[in-house]
């Protein structure tokens, strides 16, 4: 696991990873030594509306996957409807994504402080912190930190002698990827099976936890708030480019020499920097060639060599047909079997489908079975079109952003690896199928490209 570093020309401060190198960065004592809870103190001197304004000014994009501006999201709660709740989504389970875990393990107070600032800004007195069930150390550290924070008067009644009070409830998940989806997380918090709710009508901001207005934020998103409160939204927005401001954590894994979580300036750093930069990925393992990489978690359409010079900027990546999603960059080198890689990702989604919507429940496992059969040497040429048509039935027109016949995007997520791999590496599929065939299913997504377009390499 590598540590965060600052980047290139300008001096970019580490915002959320500043305490990762401290062996006791998770304790209240060390946290206070390093400026902890100053952001909260400052926020409490401002009006809640002012704090919300600062966050809006920071144009802090949600760091969970959908990338929606946090300040705008807060504003969706219908005015005057109370109680409203804050729910922190710490159910990080996307393959290759492990930034929130490190945030919770190494700097739990920063998250708690971020939650308090958010509660203050939104008008919440009851917050829930939902942590993935398997993250034992994160749970331990958070529980300890929360106890310390309660004892020291940062959480609870009359915080820092103000009339602002918040209770935080810790909740451990039971091991389901789907609970990372916000409405499923709310169901799970309510004690039900973690199945997503249909939006509309169940937008959390309107009808969320216990049918009350609810803000669901990601761990990393909230961890940025102490810094923003202390330094102002403008200072945060000063970093980055376009719609992507501030810094952002990226978890690099796969065939790189130096996998790890890196905090980089958002919007300006390129994939090439991230994968090849010495302080980051440090190049492909064994000097191999890059075959493909997933830019934003297992659900994202794959990128290839020609995308390396795209900046880590939400708009640019979206325009190229994929997404930064949860910030998980998974690298595949030339030794990777594309069919097998697609199967691995598909198998994950098939196993994690909650079973609510028919297309996802039946479609993902059907796709998995076909790919498995291909790998076992029983593929048939017609299987390639069959794979794509099943994808089309889960996500009509195989486009990006995906359309869906399901309630949540888990089902359509299975389409990305298949469409990416089939279109780019069709020969590998045909090799498994014992013959070629014409691909007849129309494919809409922009990243699903057969050959590199003629790209002018970035300077």
């Amino acid at each position, binding site marked *: 696991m590598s540590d965060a570093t600052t980047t290139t020309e300008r001096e970019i401060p580490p915002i959320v990873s500043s305490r990762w190198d401290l062996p006791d960065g998770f304790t209240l004592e060390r946290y206070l030594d390093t400026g902890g809870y100053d952001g909260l103190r400052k926020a409490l001197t401002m009006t809640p509306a002012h704090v919300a304004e600062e966050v809006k000014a920071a144009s802090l994009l949600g760091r969970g996957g959908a990338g929606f501006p946090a300040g705008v999201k807060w504003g969706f709660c219908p005015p005057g409807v109370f109680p409203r709740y804050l729910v922190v989504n710490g159910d990080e389970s996307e393959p290759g994504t492990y930034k929130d875990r490190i945030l919770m393990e190494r700097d739990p107070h920063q998250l708690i402080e971020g939650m308090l600032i958010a509660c203050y800004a939104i008008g919440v007195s009851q917050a829930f912190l939902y942590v993935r069930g398997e993250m034992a150390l994160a749970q331990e550290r958070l529980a300890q930190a929360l106890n310390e924070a309660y004892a020291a008067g940062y959480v609870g009644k009359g915080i820092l002698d103000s009339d602002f009070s918040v209770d935080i409830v810790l909740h451990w998940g039971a091991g389901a990827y789907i609970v990372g989806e916000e409405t499923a997380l709310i169901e799970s918090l309510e004690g039900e099976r973690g199945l997503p709710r249909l939006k509309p009508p169940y937008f959390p901001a309107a009808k969320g936890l216990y049918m009350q207005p609810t803000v669901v934020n990601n761990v990393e998103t909230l961890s940025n708030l102490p810094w923003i409160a202390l330094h102002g939204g403008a200072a945060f927005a000063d970093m980055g480019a376009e719609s992507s401001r501030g810094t952002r954590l990226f978890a690099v894994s796969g065939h790189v020499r130096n996998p790890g979580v890196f905090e980089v300036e958002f919007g300006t750093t390129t994939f090439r920097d991230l994968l090849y930069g010495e302080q980051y990925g440090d190049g492909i393992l064994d000097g191999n060639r890059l075959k493909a990489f997933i830019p934003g978690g297992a659900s994202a359409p794959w990128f290839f060599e020609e995308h390396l010079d795209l900046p880590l900027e939400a708009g640019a990546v979206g325009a190229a047909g994929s997404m930064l999603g949860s910030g998980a960059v998974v690298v595949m080198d030339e030794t990777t079997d594309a069919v097998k890689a697609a199967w691995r990702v598909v198998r994950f989604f098939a196993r994690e489908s909650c*079973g609510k*919507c028919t297309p996802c429940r039946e479609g*993902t496992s*059907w796709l998995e079975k076909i790919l498995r059969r291909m790998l076992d040497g029983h593929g048939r040429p017609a299987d390639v079109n069959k794979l794509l048509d099943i994808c089309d039935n889960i996500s009509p027109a195989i486009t990006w952003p995906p359309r869906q016949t399901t309630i949540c995007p888990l089902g359509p997520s299975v389409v990305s690896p298949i469409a990416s791999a089939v279109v780019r590496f069709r020969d590998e599929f045909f090799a498994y199928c014992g013959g070629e065939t014409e691909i007849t299913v129309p494919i809409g997504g922009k990243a699903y490209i057969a050959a590199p377009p003629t790209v002018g390499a970035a300077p």
Partner: protein
Amino acid sequence: MTDTAAPTTVSVTVDGRTIEAAKGELVIEAAERNGIYIPRFCYHPRMRSVGMCRMCIVEIDTGRGPALQPSCMIECSDGMSVATESEVTRKAQEGVLEFLLVNHPLDCPVCDKGGECPLQDQTMSYGPGESRFVEEKRHFEKPIPVSELVLLDRERCILCDRCTRFADEVAGDPLISFMDRGNQTQVNTFPHHPFASYFSGNTVQICPVGALTATPYRFKARPWDLEQVESTCTSCSVGCRVVVQSSRNRVVRYLGVDVDAVNWSWMCDKGRFDFEAVNSEERLGHPLVREGLLLKPATWNDAYRRAVGAIQQGIDRSGPGGFAVIGGSRLTNESQYAWTKLAKGVLGSDHVDAQLGDGLPAEVVLGVPRATIDEACAPGGTVLLLGPDVKEELPVLFLRLRHAVKNDGVKVVELASTHTAVDDGLSTESLVYRPGHALPVVRALLAGDAEDDVGGVAPEAIRAAAALLVDRPVTVLLGRHNLAESGRSIAAAAAAIHHARPDVKFLSGLRRANVHGALELGMSPGLLPGRVTLDNGRDWFGEHWPTLPAARGMDAAGILRAAADGKIDTLVLLGADPLADFPDRDLAERGLAGARTVIACDQFLTESVKQADVVLPAAGYAEVDGTTTNLESRVTTVSRKVTPPGTAQADWAIAAELALRLGTDLGLESPAAIAAEIAAVAPAFAGLAHDVLRTSAGLDGVLVGLPIRRNGDEGLAAGEPVPATARSAGTEGEQARVVAAEATAEPGAAVAAELGASGEPDDAAGAEAEGEATEGEATDGDATEGEDRAPGGPEVGVQLPVWTIIDPPLLDAYSLRLAVTRKLYDRGTLVRSSPSLADLAEPATLRLHPHDFDRLGVGVGDDVRVTSNRGNITIPTQPDPGIPRGIALIYANQAGGRANVLIDGNAPVTDVRVERP
């Protein structure tokens, strides 16, 4: 948000057609109402939408471009455009169907659902036509029993959440649930907790595939071999509308029909599966006559000769008072009328009682303003339970009540002596009173300012409950919970409520199928058909019937006492088993032994029928046509589907034949002809001929005996059909109602006039009726008893008498006060004769509060002797924290110990002693 000026309808374009939809109406509903069917599996109109199956996915454009959305989740909004047949919709629906079939075993040829399967049907209509799935399908052990009655095939299951939603939302028995996830998701029970719900059969009916099958029907028939007829369930008095299906002249299945006013398509398992009793080998197929100690098969001719001889001798010896009839509450209205006419109008005896001492005095049921189920469940009201454990005795009413509490803010105040099903989260206040103290508790409740305990109920509880009766519409569910507490004390409590709060309405909770028909048709001492007392109807019926009783007769208890004293020459048992059902078994035994001749008309050789001298086999449910009357006094049809066993006859035909052989032609030749006579002579049934019930307006039933409501049906001119209980379109509670005239209309007029159906208009009594006259008089709910009179007709209505109540004795330190309540499954004839249900009845136990065991010096599960001043039984004990201390609860009519052995019918309550044998 609270824009009251907002329009209540919105305009939506569906497939290019503009339709009007109610605001908030789901797209799937609005489309269907306008003839556009969107395929679906998980959507069910009586349950919350979940949008799981994705079959109803259509392209919906609300201004941001078309997107695929589940039409069962999206509410209509103004300007919305829906495409149910676009290329995108079609491909998506085809895809969903292909997905659903991926792991479906496609074993249609051996599947019970094949031929009536929504999955099969919609695959034909909307499916891709061929399967591309060549992989191994998902496998589960199958079938697995989820309950005694229901089997689950998890491979066929398409995980639509209907059964699990039903169990949780509707029945309140969340005992089946999804387990595992993704492709391994399955419906299952929790370990060691079977789906033991009284409503489990509904899951089989709503399952859109053959995943859930019921043991009584499994592999019995193919849907295309079934014949069916619509009828009304007569297992209890709720009157659920059902379809009776038969194959090769055997009843094989009942299905619930969705009727807004009553059962919403639900049934209880007893009602659903007791068709096995119709087919029972134990059914009587030929008459029996006693020769010495033995009942021997006889011809009808011999049996009639014996019966008529006995009746004639009895009349000759003691006059009409020597003839008595007990029972009849399981008969059709038509048979009840025929027997009333025979007993009261031909033989002149008023000793007729359809109830077996386990109900309430007829006067209290007929003498209070009555409510419908919809009125009781109307949003914002309070239901005061002074009656049965609804779930045990009137299960589908429990579902309606549960829905009202969970969804419509209805509050329930319960008065009972033991824990009941409504205590589990339905009742806001449960007042657990000591048996015998119903009247003082009700008085305290009405006064609302209790300072001390009343009848064992804390003053705080009484005050809290009283608050729920103020400023809210109140309905009393009135019945007999505890058979060991005298019915008079409940009747007196009801009368007290009526006198203090005339606005309070009552929903009768008497449980036997057609007991309300029996009361309406005069099968009770002092009454004549059509809610007319013997005294008031003397002139009117004197014109129509050969004779009339000279004076008011005796009820069942009186008849049995008289019989025991040798004063009854001929006792007729009409489908009655007093030895099992009469609360005082000792008296029942002496009565049957003391009657000179006992004639039984029954379907089974019950314990009591075995005591008879002449046994006449009666045709039963699904074997006769006619009508029945439910607890709202709603008359609906029952229909004949199969032939009776052997030479069994309809009860009305037996009455007619007996009358003929006694020298009087009843003039009753068919159920329709009887109905026409009822419509003509019985004021509460005025104009209610069978034709009326066959119109679309009358199919869901016609309320009799209630004052005409003018709300909502002003626009109806005489002769215009009434959109009665419009079955699919009407939203709950607002459908217009067909109400037969009570008093204000002349016989034969009201229903005929309102419905435009031929209510036997040629009949002398009805001929002069004019629609305008009817409407003119019946301006509003002027429901006071006994003051209405139609020109030439009898005075209609029953006066509420004053019941004198003896205070219950103080409980001595060594005794427990007895409570005897009913369970859905008992040793009753229907359950006992239905093999699938018979084993569900629990053996009799003595249920005590856990703390009473030490005091009595008995252990859990020990056999103990329970002794009252009437008799004793020996049964095992069972702890039950739902029972107050000092109470001994025994369920009525269970195997291993008959509680009615203990009950003293003369006393207000019965106390027992419990000892080690």
